[in-house]
Every structure is written in C-alpha cells, then in structure tokens.
C-alpha cells in the first residue's frame, strides 16, 4: 500500500507550481497521534500550494483533519505528541525540519493564526493592548509607546470603537465579536505573510460574521497576504476562497477553484455536503439529501476509499472502493479529485442524480 503511494507521489504532488515556487508549499503532510487505542491518523498525506494574495479554503466535517493541518503549519503541536512527516515549505524554508525556536521566530511576522474561540486564545490576565504590544515588540525594535500606538491603530483598523480606551480593557470586557476582532488585530499586527483563520466566525452571529469576513478580505487586499480559511461552512468559503480543498478523514477528497467546487463538484462527498445544506439563495427544496452514516473514526479508517461506506456510488467501481485508496488525480485544469468513479459514471451521476436536486 505505502509502497505504491511512494511511486505515485512525485508526479502527483506538484503540478501547477514547480518545486519551491509557491509561497506556501505543503507536500504529503502526515500528522499521526499515537494513542493507547491505536494511531490516530488525523492528516494522512495532503499536498497543496498557496501563493501570496490568494485564499485557500479548507472544508470538511469535524475530525477531517482541517485544524490539525493548520496547527502543523504553525508548528503548534506540542513536541512528542504528534508524529509529523512530509514537508511544509514557507517561502522556501521547510518548517517540518526546522527547530521549534526557528519556527517560533516565524510566528507573528511570517505567519499568524486566528483561532476559533477568542476567549480561550487570549490570555485573560493581560489587557488586550498588552497582548498586541508584546507580539509587535518581538518582531520590531520599537519603544513601548510606539508599540502601543500601533496597537491602538490596529484596534481601530478592525473596527473596535474607542480604541484608545479599549486598548487597556481585558478580554472578558469585550463582546464575542469584539474579542474576535481584537484577535484579528493581534494576528495582523505584524503584517503576516501567511494568515491562517481556523473557523474564524463559527462562534459569531451572522451580522458580525459578515463584518469579520469583510475585514479579512480588506486586510488581505491591503497586505497581500496568503490566507488559509478553515471552516465547515460552505457559504463562508464561497465568499472568501479562490481555491478550495475538501477534506475527508485526513485526506483531500477534492481540490479545485471555488467555481469548480461549487459549479461542477466531482467527488460524491462534495455532492453530499452540497446536498445536505439548505440553500437560502435557491428555491426551497422539499427535502435535504443527507449523507448516510457518520464520519469514520480516524483510528479505524475504512480500507480503500475512506468514504466508501457512505458513498452511493461505491458499487459502480467493481470493488476498488473497498480495497484501493484513490489518489488525488488531476481531471484537467488543476481540478483534482480522489475517487474511483470513471469519468463517464461520474458525469452521469452528476447530471442525472445530483445536479437537478441541488
């Protein structure tokens, strides 16, 4: 199994961008967690590239490995807990082989992260301003006064009212939306080249979510950052992402531009996600089309295609779905899909079963 993958990997991993050219280049990343019950293969071989100024959306359900991927890029897995293999090139530097200290120096300036839950991501004991100033002074040799002025500017930039007063407030004195904004201000205080937003709006109300998404978009334009947005909400990625990677059980099921994923999705799992979701912008459908069953345990991932027990089309592949793991292959123009369905069957299933119901 692993041998055959090794043979396929070189041609599979890099198509669109040559080695080292992409700003962020993740190659065959694997993150495994050994536990008493067995090895949890949270991420099991994913590759993608991202250029500056572009946004990649990573979509998937809980346990599909989206957050683990982002934490590996940031180097935030505690030492000794995760087994990480593969390569993560950030502007040519491999983060997997770099020391923790080297990666630490990259955080803040080269890359920054917006976490899902701002209450637990901010230190309750220090003022919001203190936390922004601290990060800023690590990377910039400036006095406290200058850093404080910068922190106030950043808070103003993300739309916090009365930033000169709010800079001395503690995180608990902020509302959820303001806290999230303060964290964005913190993440952006050093103009990071790579911004990872892990479910940045999941805990927020829809009107505040709209403000935050606009904010991320504006700031990206301004700083020309590369952005990875991780979410389970297909609406959010449609708003922000240029490219989308759909993940299932630690692997990429489908990769394409946002238009490709939404207009001509290829993988039955992507079809399932789109069918499960009530659409506010379309005629109301009588019934949703759920995916049967539940996501698999990452200790015991089904053999063959991990999605096969839930897939309506697995029987069309003459048993390959149960025995052979599909590789992520290009179907043309960089739209990649990891599925055994023949192009003819896929086209037919999409045209007759899926498209009319979406």
């Amino acid at each position: 199994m692993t041998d055959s993958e090794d043979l396929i990997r070189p041609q599979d991993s890099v198509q669109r961008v040559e080695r080292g050219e992409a700003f962020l280049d993740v190659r065959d990343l694997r993150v495994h967690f050994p536990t008493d019950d067995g090895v949890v293969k949270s991420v099991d071989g994913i590759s993608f590239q991202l250029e500056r100024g572009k946004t990649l959306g990573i979509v998937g359900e809980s346990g599909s490995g989206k957050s683990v991927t982002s934490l590996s890029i940031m180097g935030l897995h505690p030492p000794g807990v995760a087994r990480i293999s593969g390569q993560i090139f950030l502007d040519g530097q491999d983060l997997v082989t770099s020391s923790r200290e080297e990666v630490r120096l990259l955080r803040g300036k080269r890359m920054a992260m917006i976490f899902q839950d701002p209450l637990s991501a901010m230190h309750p004991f220090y003022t919001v301003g203190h936390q922004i100033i601290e990060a800023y002074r690590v990377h910039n040799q400036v006095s406290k006064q200058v850093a404080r002025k910068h922190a106030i500017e950043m808070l103003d930039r993300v739309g916090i009212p009365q930033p000169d007063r709010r800079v001395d407030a503690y995180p608990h004195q902020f509302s959820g939306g303001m806290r999230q904004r303060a964290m964005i201000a913190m993440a952006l205080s050093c103009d990071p080249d790579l911004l990872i937003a892990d479910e940045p709006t999941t805990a927020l109300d829809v009107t505040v979510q709209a403000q935050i998404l606009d904010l991320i978009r504006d700031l990206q334009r301004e700083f020309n950052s590369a952005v990875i947005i991780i979410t389970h909400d297909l609406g959010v990625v449609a708003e922000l992402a240029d490219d989308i990677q759909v993940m299932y059980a630690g692997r990429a099921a489908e990769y394409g531009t946002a238009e490709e994923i939404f207009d001509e999705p290829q993988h039955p799992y992507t079809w399932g996600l789109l069918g499960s979701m009530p659409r506010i912008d379309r005629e109301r459908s009588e019934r949703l089309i759920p995916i049967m069953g539940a996501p698999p345990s990452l200790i015991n991932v089904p053999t063959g295609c991990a999605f096969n027990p839930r897939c309506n089309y697995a029987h069309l592949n003459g048993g390959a779905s149960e025995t052979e793991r599909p590789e992520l292959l290009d179907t043309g123009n960089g739209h990649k899909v990891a599925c055994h369905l023949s192009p003819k069957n896929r086209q037919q299933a999409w045209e007759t079963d899926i498209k009319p119901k979406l």
Partner: protein
Amino acid sequence: MTTTDSELTPKTPKLGEEILSVTGLVKHFPIRKGVLQRQVGAVQAVDGLTFNVTRGETLSLVGESGCGKTTTGRLLTRLETPTDGKIVFEGRDISHLGEGRMRPLRRDVQMIFQDPYGSLNPRHTVGKIVGAPFRLQHVKTEHGVKKAVQELLELVGLSPEHYNRYPHEFSGGQRQRIGIARTLALRPKLIVADEPVSALDVSIQAQVVNLLEDLQEEFDLTYVMIAHDLSVVRHVSDRVAVMYLGKIVELADRVDLYEKPMHPYTVALLSAVPVPDTKRKKKQERIRLQGDVPSPINPPPACRFHTRCWKAQDICKSVEPPLVELAPGHQTACHFPENQPTDTPAATADQPKS
C-alpha cells in the same frame, strides 16, 4: 403505545387550530448587588411577546445571541416562570402553574436541547434515558417500558440493540437522536426545539432535519424551533418570528419573510447570510450592520434597533413602533418598513434563482 392520548383527546385542537397562545410575555432576570442583595436592575431577556402557534405547524424564533429566543423557549416549556404575560396551552393558562400542576402537562410539551453532550446523563444507559419519561409520569405501556423504548429508538433511526449502551459510545448526531427519542416518548403535542441541529456537522444536520420533518408528519407534531441559522430555518419553518433584544420585530409566513422582509433588521440578517455561490461574491449587495447588539440590561429606548438601523429617524428614538399587520399574516414593528405591499418588492438577496 401510551394511555395518555385517549384521555386528553377531547381537548386537543384539530390541525390548523390554535394550540398555544402567548400574550405580552415578559421575563426579566433581576440583577442584585451588595450585602442586602438589592435589585439594581434587570436583564430584560424577553419583553412583551405576543404570538400564537397552530397545531401541526413549525414556528421558528430567530435572532442573534442575546435576543431572548432561548428564554422564550424555556418560558413556553415553563422551565422559567414569566415575570408577566400569559401562556395559554390548549385553552389552559399555564403561565403560573406550580410545579405539581405543571407536571401532567409535561407529557404534552417537551423540549429538544441544543447540546447533545450536555443533555444526556453520562452515567445512564440509553434505555434508562429514553425510558425516564415513562417512569416519571407513571405511564403504563402495553409490552413494558423496554419494548416501548426500543420502538422509539427504531423510530429515530437507532437500533434497538443500543438499549444498554451509554451516551459516550455515540456520535453527536446519534446522541441528538437519543434526545429526540426521549422527547417523543410520551407523544407530546408541542415540542420546543432549541437549536436542535446547530451542534452537528453539515451532513448529520441534514439527517436530523429530515427526521424532525418525518416525525412531524407522522405524529402531527407542533414545533417551536429556536435557531440562528437562517438557511435551516427557511427549510423547516411554516412561520418565522424574528427577535431583537427581547422583542419580536417581524412575524410572517416563511415565504413572505424571506422574499419580502419588511423590518430593516430582517433585511440585514438575510443579506448577511453567506451564500455558497461563487457568482454572488462579486455583487456585494450586503448591508453591513455596525457594531454589536446592545446590552439587554439597558436596551435603547423606543425602537430597540434604532442604534444600528440605517433608516432610523427621530421618531424611532422616541416612539416605540407597535407590531402591526402590514400585509395579511405579516406583522412588523417598524416606522419605516421595507417592501410595503404597495411598493414593488425590492431586489433582496433571497430571491430564488431561475
């Protein structure tokens, strides 16, 4: 399966008749301070709601966090006692019934909770959890409680063999099904579902939404659904009430509300929903609301939305707009409503494509 239905049938309204009516419902949570615990203020969680629910329909309460939708749900199920106002269920005023008098009614009014992890006792087996209503209400079942529970498990798409398992052995979606089985045990008439799918993954969410719809059809259930996801609400509801800071600002038929929203807040909410359509990204027709929802401890006077409303004028700050019916079945509390019947409907975000 149960014996309860027969004795209560005469009072049960027919499909489409009023089952629940709420008038002027108020709930203020006092804020106490100091040694003497004197009341220094109140969180005005719910402040004067009036609506009714007819049998067999789904009424959804939507709004942002802090708008009082969950408190309303807890008032309807009488997990909280209202500060003021009346809740009439099947012709009976239940707003101030005591614990003991309320208990028999709990067969008819049940709740589905948001968090499938917190709402099931981890030390009880599924059998004990789902069988609890029978024991608590001393309901005799024909073939014993175990049989009844197993039937319920099958009904919600679980296997009868799950009887002896514990909640931790199940995934979030399955747990939510266990909760639904417990809710259905005594064949309630009214179910208050507080964010029943928001904690679930998208693919599982669709399964549970479909299950709730099937059960409604099979048992003529009436749902009061509390939710914040406007796409899900549109899918499941017959009527929708939009709440803002403890008040209903708009109450209408699903189609009317989504196609011709009248209250500016509803318009803003709808336009803020991210739509999984890459073509819409370019249009930018979004209404950006400024700031956050004000505190319900000290809500703005008159129209509570005026601090964030782009149409607000002086009258909005001094005179509270009443909730009035501007179109048949479409109530709005606004001085300057959008999409009035005489107007041509403005192009809003939710107009169906093709």
